[in-house]
């Protein structure tokens, strides 16, 4: 490996570049908050906790990200995993009974039970199988909290492509969810 001139992000220690993180941090936080609003009320992760959970995992991820877009994509993917795993854990807990009442952030009345989140996850998996490109858009929008222009930038597509793709994806998911 060259001793000089290597890209600043390739520091080789497995940590995300802190300077990079500083730039995107508020985005991550907004993203976490956005996600939590679609989660159930006694979700035991606060947005901040979710952010840090994701951050912890991102820190352990030994792949490098080359740019901000890459970072955001990875973050959205990580958020998705964290949430899904958490929903699965909640399901198990539910099965085992014993629910302690907690007050928490909510919600616009959407996807309030872990079952719901998992159902959406299944639909996204089905979409991934036939159209990975659209699944990426869904992931960025649902788990990444990105708006269409941001998704267009992150996926290097035109805004129009993203907007239409989103509607197609949405219809696919709705169809799948309806069974």
């Amino acid at each position, binding site marked *: 490996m060259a001793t000089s001139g290597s890209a600043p992000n390739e520091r080789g220690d497995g940590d995300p570049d802190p300077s990079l993180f*500083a730039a995107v941090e508020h985005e991550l936080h907004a993203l976490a908050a956005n996600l939590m609003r679609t989660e159930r009320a006694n979700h035991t*992760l606060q947005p901040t906790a979710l952010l*840090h959970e994701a951050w912890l995992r991102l*820190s352990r991820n030994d792949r490098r990200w080359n740019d901000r877009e890459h970072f955001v994509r990875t973050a959205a993917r990580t958020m998705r995993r964290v949430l899904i795993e*958490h929903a699965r854990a909640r399901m198990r807990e539910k099965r085992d009974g014993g629910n302690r009442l907690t007050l928490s952030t909510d*919600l616009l*009345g959407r996807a309030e039970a872990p079952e719901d989140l998992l159902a959406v996850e299944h639909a996204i998996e089905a979409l991934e199988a036939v159209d990975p490109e659209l699944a990426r858009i869904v992931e960025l929008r649902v788990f990444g909290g990105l708006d269409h222009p941001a998704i267009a930038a992150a996926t290097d597509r035109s805004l129009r492509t993203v907007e239409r793709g989103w*509607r197609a994806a949405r219809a696919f998911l*709705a169809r799948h969810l*309806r069974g």
Partner: protein
Amino acid sequence: MLPETWQRARAVFEQALDLEAGERDAWVRDQCGADAALAGEVLALLRLDAEIQPVLDAAPVLRARDHDLAGATIAGFQVRRRLGSGGMGTVYEAQQERPQRTVALKVLAVQFPSERARRRFEDEAEILARLRHPGIAQVLAAGSARLDCADVPWFAMELVEEPRPIDAFVREQRLDVAGVLALFAPVLDAVHCAHQHGVIHRDLKPANVLVDRRGHVKLIDFGIASLAGRDAVDRCTRTGEILGTLAYMSPERLERKSLGDETPADIYALGVMLYELLAGRSPFAFAELPPARAMAELLAADPAPPSRCNLAVPVELDWIVTKAMAREAGRRYASATEFQADIERFRRNDPVAAGPPSATYRLRKLAWRHRVLLGAAATAFAAVTTGFVVAMVGWSRVATAEHQAQRKAATLREVNRFQESVLFDASGGERGGDVLLVDAVDRAAAAIDERQFGDPVAEIGARRAVGNALLGCGRLQDAERHLSRAAALLAEHNIDPGEGWQVLVDEALAKVHEKQGKLELAEREARRALAVSITIYGDGADTTAIERHNLATLLLERGTGHAEALTLATHALRAFERQPRSVDERTIHARTLIASALAGLGRLDEAEAAFTAAMAEAEQYLPPDHAARLATLDAWAGYLFGQRRFEAAHERLVALVAARERVFGAHHPKTLSVQSSLAATQGELGRYADAEATLRRVVAGFDALGVHGIEHVKAQQSLVATIRRQGRAADAEPLARENRADAARRLPSDHWLVGVVAKEHGACLRELGRFEEAEQALLEGHALLERIIGADDYRTQRVVSELTALYEAWPRQKEAEKWRRKQTGHER
């Protein structure tokens, strides 16, 4: 659906979006031609698109419309100004008309709330209304109002006047320690009240504990909203805010291990808060660090006790704060009331329940600096701290008379001071620089011998602590000396077993003797520890379960009482499962023991299932390098090895070696002992060169550590055997001789390993044609093994084969025939 089918449908669908709704139907049918299925698919998608558009896109739009209601009148409340918002509610300062008062008014921030959102909002008001406590902002009224053509629920809470976050208040008022404790008591009480109603706050931090104009504390923001006073603390930058929250997040929450009861996480946050109020700074110094570092800092470092920042903080408060902030949720106060009770005890000058934390504290910090030597020692010191807590609990039950209590508090202080000084030394102390822990422990050991203790119990405690530390460093003989002295003192001074020391000393002695191979002795001690624990702590107590667990471990090591071990481990597991967190490292340990016991009983299917279950549980609940997870992996590998499934065992051992190296470093006894197992597996797989290389590393590691016990002899024995099997008896023989001398010097004379080592030397000598010497070594080994493990054991049988081979090679046929007849066919 096939990807191609979908792509076609998608293409038609996307184009149809450009058309007016009325034109789409005909256009789609036209595009799809004869493919009616495709047309049906696209039309279905278009219908769904129209249906879900408002549903899915509603949320962001509605959120954007969260406008300020200042100036409006809602249900008789004149809204004055917006105080903050969060979640689904926005909080305003408002004037109520009747009765005339200023309130905090929370309004659902969504314009067209779903039924569920509305219900949740109302639940929140109801729950808050149930929490009647002067330290919790009270709900005054609730209802719903017509707002922009929609019914919007609201509730009014008492307004915290001139709110200041508790930390700002303490700074402003320059409160001393007593003042801080007085201010903090109602906080604990309020949190306890919430907990009793099943409400976990989950976001306790100074910004959510406000002090009003009259100096009364109010808990706000039960995870639902930012309430009155938030703007007073809104000066935080975003980064600061995140880190501010982070600092109060318990390790299990940070690592997301927390399942079930979340009370301990609140207790932790309260501990951090009290720390901050006492010390005047956050326990975690990461304000300047980038977030990734801050996370690492939080997960890795243990803060110095608050007294380090504020000399006015007495050591008991250090303990109390540390107990509340314990990394392991189970070690924290079980409730806010217990926390408060301990503070009260301190204020009354009674001995507190929290023990001295400094051992683990300093050790952990130190451990990050030299990870090589410290793993085992850290474990030992953690045991010391736990031991103290256990001992103190036991003691507090017995000690009724006041003067007795005081005497013992003095004793404990003496022990603690001693440990403090030792550990201060270990952490570099005033000498500066890094001091190896072994050296520190050595100095501590020497210091005990010189020191005059005012109280035999203090000396017992100190010797036990040092003995345990020496045990952790692998210095068995020295450990035994101190622990035996402690045992002798217990007897000499007739110390009541009810004080708990007997159990602790027996427990530690049993571990030393187990490691020395004096298993019978160890078993006696472990049994006594269990019996005493049942008497003083009760059959169902945690301590008793731990003693059961220890005895089970020992019986498995002895290889004798598998059935009893199974009963003990099952019993212990049940006790551990009754704890608040029904799954933790102890339950996983216990499951592993059960699996090993089942294997020992030959119930292989059940054992296999139990191992799989234990491993699955460990993987689910414990981080990858957690000690209990590795222990399970270790036991499983051992089982697979015993089943001669060497490939499977090899795979697990490789993972285990890597993990141990990460956790403890390459030259730690624990790493080395797994490497020995790995080498044995490599040997069984016929990979002798690999095995030899591994074993040379192991032996070199033990030499570097100055560890010469059973493990060292075992490793050398394996090395000799590996070299010899490669046809290099001449290389092997000098090592074999050395190892035999080592075994004779370091192991009890009736340990089976002494016989095996003699046999190995004999085999080398035979291959070199030195028959007389070989004969002597083999006969010696055989006599020993036959006496202690019986003629039929495979190890004895190997000597028999060796002797047969020797006499055949010599040749002395008559003897060869005699030994051949002793073979029972057990030899593989």
